[in-house]
């Protein structure tokens, strides 16, 4: 744990490739290289998705046509949703930072199935390529929304069929990551790395991976059935052929609700790892946090129909699913309280990673609490499919997982590039992002309460003021994001050398040089203390 400048000057795994040039990356089975491949592909798609979000906001500046017609708008928000969900947020933290960090955190040299790991990146890229292809072929860009509800999705002439294939492949990629991680965590922990010494980030990946394995196939069959309905006319959801459109919604949400926990659990893991380091205090309630991750993963699989209160399903189902939805809130609450307790009586350094982690807590809490408004049956009837929902999920996904993703970038990139970004600029960028975020999405919640439906290209004039506020917020947010990314990329390329342990972390990755060597550990490590034992780790 002594700062080793000589090692920091080396380029570690960044310099050691088995193949020359780009092939050393795209055919590498090193988990760190795959992690970086994922990271930059994901960031790229995030930027594309965010630009589409910006276009949505521009169109909604005023009622009627502003910059695009209704059909284009529908394609734009569909693409925005599909990119953000399937290409950014679901693979986001697990595939990028999970791959980079998790094997090191458990003291392994790589994941259990390195070649499968590479395959899942290729599938990710293949799925993304197909999704892009679907824009320019067939009947034009899909216009169904990311939820692909039938019968509309079965009838529309746009290229939905190809998009379902893309989603199927992306699901496959996600499954492979999940099964790789579960096996890795079970089989490759270093000596002394007991289950109660696993860093909380790794624990959260473990819980997530199980959802990936058990829920994703249901999405696979759902989109496969939609494909079959469009291509060969097996109308399993077509009322004219005896099918039930609501069954599509069940199958879709059986995956897609658990998927929101695929999105957020790793983010919670990042936050659980960052807070102790910057507060110089062990994670409070380690076991409670672990149990709550598993509880969220399990109970989160039982609440899918809360997206369907108004669909015409039975009232009994409304009651049971509403009740279970509220149960999921409890483990989330436990996590928030434990994070706060970790801060209490610590010695807190407000560096960029912590700033983003704390904004995770605040924004996710707002998102989660508005989730409770949605979980209650009566109130959801009013706000279902309005901008209130749009506000809710941007708070949880962007305010939650997105912020955690940015926190992870500020926390771990110096480790893997051996260079430090400019902390002042990062802090300013954080401030701009936070401000823009609140203006943008709080306006959405209010306009949603007033009754503005989502997926509306045009709206009644009463809603104009709040929509303009939201659009203005998106510009502020955009400026902040650009500032942040430019600063990070500059840091990676030209930053000052970063020491091995810039933040004073006690988990294993901080004991390696920055960047780590290809094989991670010269000798298999023997773990003798918990992940947040700063005294034994010599930090305090």
């Amino acid at each position, binding site marked *: 744990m002594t700062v080793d400048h000589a090692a920091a000057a080396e380029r570690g795994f960044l310099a050691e490739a088995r193949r020359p040039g780009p092939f050393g990356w795209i055919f590498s089975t090193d988990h760190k290289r795959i992690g970086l491949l994922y990271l930059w592909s994901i960031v790229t798609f995030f930027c594309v998705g965010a630009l589409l979000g910006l276009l949505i906001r521009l169109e909604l500046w005023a009622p009627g046509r502003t910059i695009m017609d209704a059909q284009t708008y529908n394609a734009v928000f569909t693409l925005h949703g599909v990119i953000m969900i399937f290409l950014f947020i679901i693979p986001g933290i697990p595939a990028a930072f999970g791959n980079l960090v998790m094997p090191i955190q458990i003291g392994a040299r790589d994941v259990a199935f390195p070649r499968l790991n590479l395959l899942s990146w290729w599938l990710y890229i293949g799925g993304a390529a197909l999704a892009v292809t679907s824009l320019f072929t067939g009947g034009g860009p899909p216009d169904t929304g990311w939820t692909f509800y039938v019968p509309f999705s079965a009838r529309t002439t746009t290229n939905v069929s190809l998009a379902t294939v893309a989603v199927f492949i992306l699901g496959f990629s996600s499954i492979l990551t999940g099964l790789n991680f579960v096996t890795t965590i079970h089989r490759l922990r270093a000596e002394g790395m007991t289950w109660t010494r696993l860093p909380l980030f790794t624990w959260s990946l473990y819980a997530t991976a199980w959802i990936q394995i*058990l829920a994703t196939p249901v999405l696979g069959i759902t989109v496969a059935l939609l494909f079959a309905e469009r291509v060969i006319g097996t109308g399993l959801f077509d009322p004219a052929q005896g099918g039930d459109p609501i069954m599509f919604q069940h199958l879709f949400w059986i995956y897609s609700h658990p998927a929101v926990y695929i999105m957020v659990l790793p983010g919670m893991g990042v936050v659980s790892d960052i807070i102790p380091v910057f507060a110089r205090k062990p994670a409070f309630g380690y076991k409670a946090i672990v149990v709550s991750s598993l509880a969220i993963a399990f109970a989160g699989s*039982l609440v899918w129909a809360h997206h369907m209160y108004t669909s*015409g399903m*039975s009232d009994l*189902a409304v009651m049971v*699913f509403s009740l279970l939805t509220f149960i999921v809130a409890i483990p989330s609450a436990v996590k928030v309280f434990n994070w706060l307790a970790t801060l209490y009586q610590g010695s807190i350094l407000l560096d960029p990673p912590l700033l983003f982690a704390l904004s995770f807590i605040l924004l996710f809490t707002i998102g989660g609490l508005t989730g409770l408004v949605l979980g209650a049956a009566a109130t959801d009837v009013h706000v279902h499919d309005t901008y209130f929902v749009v506000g809710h999920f941007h708070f949880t996904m962007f305010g939650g997982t997105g912020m955690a993703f940015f926190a992870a970038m500020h926390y771990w990139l110096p480790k893997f590039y051996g260079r430090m970004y400019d902390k002042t600029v990062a802090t300013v960028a954080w401030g701009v992002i936070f401000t823009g975020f609140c203006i943008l999405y709080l306006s959405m919640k209010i306009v949603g309460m007033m009754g503005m439906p989502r997926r509306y290209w045009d709206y009644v004039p009463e809603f104009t003021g709040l929509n303009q506020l939201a659009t203005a917020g998106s510009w502020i947010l955009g400026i902040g994001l650009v500032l942040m990314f430019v600063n990070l990329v500059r840091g990676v390329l030209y930053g000052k050398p970063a020491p091995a342990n810039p933040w004073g972390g006690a988990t294993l990755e901080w004991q390696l040089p920055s960047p780590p060597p290809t094989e991670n550990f010269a000798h298999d490590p023997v773990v003798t203390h918990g992940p947040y034992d700063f005294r034994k780790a010599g930090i305090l």
Partner: protein
Amino acid sequence: MSENQEHAHIVPYRTFFLVWVALLALTAITVAVAQVNLGPLNVWAALGIATVKSTLVVAYFMHMKYEARLFKLALLAALAILAIFIGMTFLDVLYRS
């Protein structure tokens, strides 16, 4: 990695053969039962026999009987989740007004 895993249990031919005979017998039984009208019980009987058959396949052909407890727990978890998915869907389907 360890030696004793490399030389894990080798199932004798005879066991497999007996399992196969049992599976054939169960197939015959399930066909026979289907000819009798038991009302809704027919489906449950068919599912019951199929469950017995699949248990045999999983336990012997797929060696689950000889695997570590982790494998068994994981299998149970997967099946439980599937059962929950089906069961909870029926909360809607059976009780629509």
